[in-house]
């Protein structure tokens, strides 16, 4: 970690974004369990450093694809949490006007492709965005977020092969949280590191601690700038952990207690808070950021709950341009 290169302001920006995601998810979980929020949710608690570290390395015009677990990526890309919250409630003010919901959210204006909740579905799409950037000679990069499970999909292999053959500006980011729904990664692949799979396509692969936001940021920065300057794709594996269930009311009883305990000690916000304190940032500042964030989230909840639903007949719109 080259932490001395960072200003306190930048470090607090990382912190704020991670806390915004965490508090947002905790609030959503509560709303959901109370039965106030409809649908289903896949939450991001524990993986915040991945989204914040990677998305902080991007420039305007860069585009990401996300997954069925998209809230963290959307927030990290700077989408308005009011429009995210409203989408979760199925309101017309949502980022997809109520047609997407939790799993399909995004906003292309903010560089987030909406709508990709099929595991592995986004990998060729991100590859195509990179292909388009290259064909149109644009100085941009596509980033493809996926989970460990997606790397067993055919699209993963097809896409990495094409990105390699065509030398595309795409960064593939695998957030390895060790579980595909309830299945541990060791049951479904023999490789020790998912990044080993990059070698099959002769592209760079690297595995790092995905709970270390600065390490994630630096690794992403290097891969993104390499892609931007014509150096081709990279596969980054971020080792992390989902400290909540897979979806909805999943109590994650398949995660052994010892493993969970260890994960909670190593979770990214706790880890980064200790680091900030060691850098001399005061507890008061850290606490005040948390309070600010909570207020922002309450405003978003209020906005979402007070927003109108779409008209039932709006079902019939938006099919064709």
């Amino acid at each position: 970690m080259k932490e001395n290169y960072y200003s306190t302001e930048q470090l607090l920006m990382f912190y704020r974004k991670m806390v915004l995601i965490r508090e947002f998810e905790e609030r959503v979980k509560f709303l959901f369990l109370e039965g106030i929020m409809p649908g289903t949710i896949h939450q991001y608690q524990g993986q915040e450093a991945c989204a914040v570290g990677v998305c902080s390395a991007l420039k305007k015009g860069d585009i990401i694809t996300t997954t069925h677990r998209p809230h963290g990526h959307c927030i990290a890309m700077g989408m308005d949490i009011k429009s995210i919250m409203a989408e979760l409630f199925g309101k017309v003010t949502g980022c997809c006007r109520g047609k997407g919901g939790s799993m399909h959210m995004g906003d292309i204006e903010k560089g987030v492709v909406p709508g990709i909740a099929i595991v592995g579905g986004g990998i060729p799409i991100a590859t195509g965005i990179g292909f388009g950037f290259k064909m149109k000679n644009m100085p941009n990069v596509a980033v493809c977020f996926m989970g460990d499970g997606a790397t067993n999909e055919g699209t993963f292999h097809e896409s990495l092969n094409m990105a390699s053959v065509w030398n595309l500006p795409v960064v593939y980011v695998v957030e390895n949280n060790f579980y595909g729904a309830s299945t541990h990664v060791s049951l479904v692949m023999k490789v020790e590191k998912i990044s080993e799979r990059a070698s099959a396509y002769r592209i760079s692969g690297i595995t790092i601690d995905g709970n270390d936001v600065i390490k994630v940021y630096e690794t992403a920065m290097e891969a993104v700038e390499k892609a931007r300057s014509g150096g081709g794709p990279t596969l980054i594996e971020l080792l992390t952990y989902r400290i909540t269930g897979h979806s909805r009311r999943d109590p994650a009883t398949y995660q052994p207690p010892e493993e969970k305990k260890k994960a909670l000690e190593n979770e990214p916000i706790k880890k980064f808070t200790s680091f900030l304190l060691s850098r001399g940032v005061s507890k008061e500042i850290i606490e005040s950021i948390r309070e600010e964030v909570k207020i922002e989230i309450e405003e978003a909840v209020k906005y979402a709950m007070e927003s109108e639903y779409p008209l039932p007949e709006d079902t019939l719109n938006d099919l064709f341009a």
Partner: protein
Amino acid sequence: MARLTIAEALREAIREEMRRDENVYCIGEDIGIPGGWGGAFTVTLGLEKEFPDRIINTPISEAGFFGVALGSSLIGLRPIIDVQYGDFLFCAMDQIANQIAKLRYMSGGKVKIPIVIRAPVGVTGRGAQHSQMMEPFFHCLPGIKIVVPATAYDAKGLLKTAVRDDNPVLIFEHKLLYGAKGVRSESGSIDASSEIPEEEYTIPFGKAVVRKQGKDITIIATLLMMYRAYEAAQILEEQGISVEVIDPRSLVPFDWETVKKSIAKTGRVIIVEESPRRGGIGAEIAATIAEEMLDFLIAPVRRIAAPDTPAPFSPVMEKFYVPSTERIVQTVKEIINISS
């Protein structure tokens, strides 16, 4: 004016559209290879000479390159996807059905997906996995338009419209109608060539063509079946039965007005299709006619379709499988007999 086959007319349409708009490009398997085929049926043959960077040959990765096309369309490119056989669309089904068809809708109308997918179909001597008619699998899928050109004139005009459309468009091209030449020629082909005007033209979707006027019975048929229906109509004409043949040209959107007008005149209707009867296009057309045009009918709606089996290989069985001109003639006579 020049007489072109469907393969040539499609090639000219692609060439003109690529000249007109630099965002248009072709992507698929075995295209753009010097000394190669220009796709399975020669449609893109030689285009790489004029557009070396925009005829993109892919690995055999259908799900992959359909996704690539989609991703590229999100930033303003306008891909024309080339699949070797329509049957291979299943390999890319997640990208087509879950992503391409739904992305605009799920985004609340905030993205455009200008993608053309060209897919050869037709029961043509190859057995079950290279001979399917694919229309029914996509007809029930909201978010994709479906075009079925039976002549070279239509193929050119409809493809140009498809490329300019801001939505996904599937074009089903029939292997026996291409008029592909050389090593890629197709045995049993029939001539679907047309005189193609020098000046540019496009053909709007949702506008059927009445291929033959008639007053006793209406036959609705696309692609190869349109030719069979037309041939049957000629035979029946000599026997004093006047058949109207409608070629819808696009299935989504569908020209109900032309169908309605025809049935109002004839009171009888047959839908001929090359795919299995169950859940076919004919079922949808017949149901809508039953709901909305029953008052016009003086005989039950009939479907002539393939049996509910995969396409067989043996030429003997294949002949049994695909609706024939004789079967159409016979069915028309039956309907006329019971309703005269």
